[in-house]
């Protein structure tokens, strides 16, 4: 059994899926983020001034990029894997001698690629409005990839346990979006009053956004080593849990 071929087949299938429907998958983030930059950056941002030494427009760009990466890597995997379950073509994979880790790697790879492509599209749009200096490019790329991986895994687990299309929209709408908006995309956590500042420090997305902001414009509210350690820790835990679900056939067998 050639696992490399099976992995490439699954990965190409996943990429082909979101590229085939690019008006649904790649165009909306471009339009949405252009509106963010126009309204928050241009119209309101000029009145806010400078945060941590960066213009408001430059300050919000990393968060807006990463917010798109989070939502698209998550939604890519949750919708693709749930549809595969719903239409029963998961059986194509289950009857074949494809190991569980290849199945997981294929879907996560698809989610990461979509997250990165969306991230690049949004970055390109942002460069029309802001000046990105790419202070620590390696850190920015690492945060981008780790974030896409983490939320692809989360999307995969959501899809495994989902029994209806409602189940795949609950977490993005009621957990991810609020956490993203409260994760310091549009403000510095230092601007919050005491209790809210403490509560915000419990939001994992805050660390990701700040680490990415450090990579792009050299500004952060948190220690980025904590961001990396936490993200890698979550990735390991979610990977092991995903493999356990596949091994037990939770949500896909019987």
């Amino acid at each position, binding site marked *: *059994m050639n696992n490399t071929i099976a992995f490439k087949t699954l990965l190409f299938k996943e990429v082909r899926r979101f590229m085939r429907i690019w008006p649904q998958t790649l165009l909306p983030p471009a339009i949405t983020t252009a509106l963010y930059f126009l309204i928050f950056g241009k119209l309101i941002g000029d009145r806010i001034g400078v945060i941590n030494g960066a213009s408001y427009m430059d300050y919000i760009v990393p968060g807006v990029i990463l917010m798109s990466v989070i939502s698209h890597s998550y939604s890519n995997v949750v919708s693709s894997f749930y549809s595969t379950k719903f239409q029963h073509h998961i*059986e*194509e994979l289950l009857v074949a001698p494809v190991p569980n880790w290849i199945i997981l790697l294929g879907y996560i790879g698809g989610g990461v690629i979509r997250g990165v492509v969306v991230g690049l599209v949004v970055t390109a749009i942002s460069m029309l409005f802001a000046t990105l200096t790419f202070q620590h490019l390696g850190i920015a790329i690492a945060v981008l990839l780790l974030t896409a991986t983490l939320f692809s895994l989360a999307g995969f687990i959501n899809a495994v346990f989902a029994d209806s299309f409602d189940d795949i929209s609950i977490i993005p709408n009621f957990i991810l979006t609020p956490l993203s908006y409260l994760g310091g995309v549009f403000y510095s956590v230092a601007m919050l009053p005491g209790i809210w500042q403490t509560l915000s420090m419990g939001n994992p997305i805050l660390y990701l956004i700040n680490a990415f902001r450090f990579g792009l414009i050299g500004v952060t509210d948190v220690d980025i080593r904590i961001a990396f350690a936490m993200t890698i820790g979550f990735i390991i835990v979610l990977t092991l849990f995903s493999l356990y679900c596949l091994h037990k056939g939770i949500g896909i067998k*019987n």
Partner: protein
Amino acid sequence: MKALSIKNLKKKYANGFEALKGIDLDVAAGDFFALLGPNGAGKSTTIGIISSLVTASSGSVSIFGYDLDAQRAQAKNCIGLVPQEINFSQFETVHNIVFTQAGYYGIPRKQALINTERCLKQMQLWDKKDTVSRRLSGGMKRRVMIARALVHQPRLLILDEPTAGVDIEIRRSMWDLMREVNRQGTTIILTTHYLEEAESLCRNIAIINNGEIVENSNMAQLLSRLHTDHFILDLAQPLAQAPVMNGFDIEWVNENTLNVAVPKTEGLNKLFAELSLQNINVISLKNKSNRLEQLFMDVVDANKGIAK
């Protein structure tokens, strides 16, 4: 060589339903084998376990000597599955569906393209290769599933009601395709509700009921157990009531139609001799029911009696 060997296979679902109660089943390599049973008997659970879609509670399955638990990859490589329900992406082209499946089996791209072309041509789908699958007819979708199941050249092909819902013309052409696949050396296990299909195609048969194998024999031997054939006679002249004939059980359906049970000990010649004696002219006759159907009902009914 056994293509399939099942030992004491049990399956109890989470809701407590015991779908399989410890079945044993062997299928020889090269066989065309029928697995029959009423709805809910355990056929789909058995096939689900063999093809790794359902987890067994206990027991063992081996495919061409490979244990499904210990040598899963080798065992899976031997199997091609054509499921009951259409289960491919409705947004992919016919070619992509079959080609992608070859990739899942680790077949290199060049060989996968060759295999895909061969299977699509064999299933008479080559001219539809670029068609998006949702635009295909029901019969074509079934053939796509067979092509997909054959793309890695499996030694054991499992067909779970492959002709359900297709018209008689397509069904007959699919029978020819299945015969050809079997003739080329692929072992086939067929489940179907069309018993004439099983009778026409299969050499050996098992009947499963209430999670147990209640019959497992050679098709010819099984059919030889049928002691009575049932015929419908179309009469040239109307009859007011059923005639009485020694040795035959005759039922009056209407003035131009009789149902006759003909014991094998009596035969059709004697029936016609008796009819001639009573000046009853027959225009035509046909089998009232498929022979296997009669046996199937007998076996299932007998099993119900035991279960009670």
